[in-house]
């Protein structure tokens, strides 16, 4: 059973390296953001398999935190790609 879990760990690591190739080479900025989101998703399942291999429950919070960070960073980078700024300031309404 450990052999199968080790094979699946190697396959997830292979997927992360292929996405890393897309981050380095990727022609446009949204390609890199898509690959970064995919690395976050693969990292979640990698942590789950590691917590089985090491016989512990202590790593299960990492799944939630990595998921939330991947989603928020994807939304922030999408706003940056679209508008050029992340946090919009309030515009004054033209009254001098």
């Amino acid at each position, binding site marked *: 059973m450990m052999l199968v879990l080790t094979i699946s760990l190697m396959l*997830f690591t292979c*997927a992360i390296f292929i*996405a890393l190739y897309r981050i380095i080479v990727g022609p446009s900025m949204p390609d890199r953001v898509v690959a970064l989101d995919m690395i976050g998703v*693969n990292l979640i399942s990698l942590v789950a398999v590691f917590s089985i291999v090491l016989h512990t429950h202590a790593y299960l919070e990492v799944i939630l935190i990595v998921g939330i960070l991947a989603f928020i960073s994807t939304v922030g980078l999408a706003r940056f790609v679209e508008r050029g700024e992340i946090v919009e300031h309030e515009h004054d309404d033209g009254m001098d």
Partner: protein
Amino acid sequence: MMEWISVFLILTGSIMAVISAFGILRLPDVYTRSHAATKSSTLAVLLSLLGAFIYFWANEGFISIRLLLGIIFVFITAPVAGHIITRAAYRSKVKLASSSGEDALKPYLEKSPKDN
């Protein structure tokens, strides 16, 4: 027996992750790459998290609420993130692949121009 079911689910999820990684390597465009990166990769992480949940449930009698929350969170947010980054790519005028047939969103955006 239940352990082997969970290990089989994890192995299926890892094979699915490698297939979606080849999709993100081989597809020609950012729009098609987002399909490979959101749909099949989400299926891969759901299968592996379900396998871990079944393993802890069968082996130690431990029902992990955190794994269930992780499954629900990934299942909700991955399509939302794919939609947002694809919309940002279209608004910032990333080219479609030359083999794509038609641009169905273009006449709609030209009919109602939106200045932001």
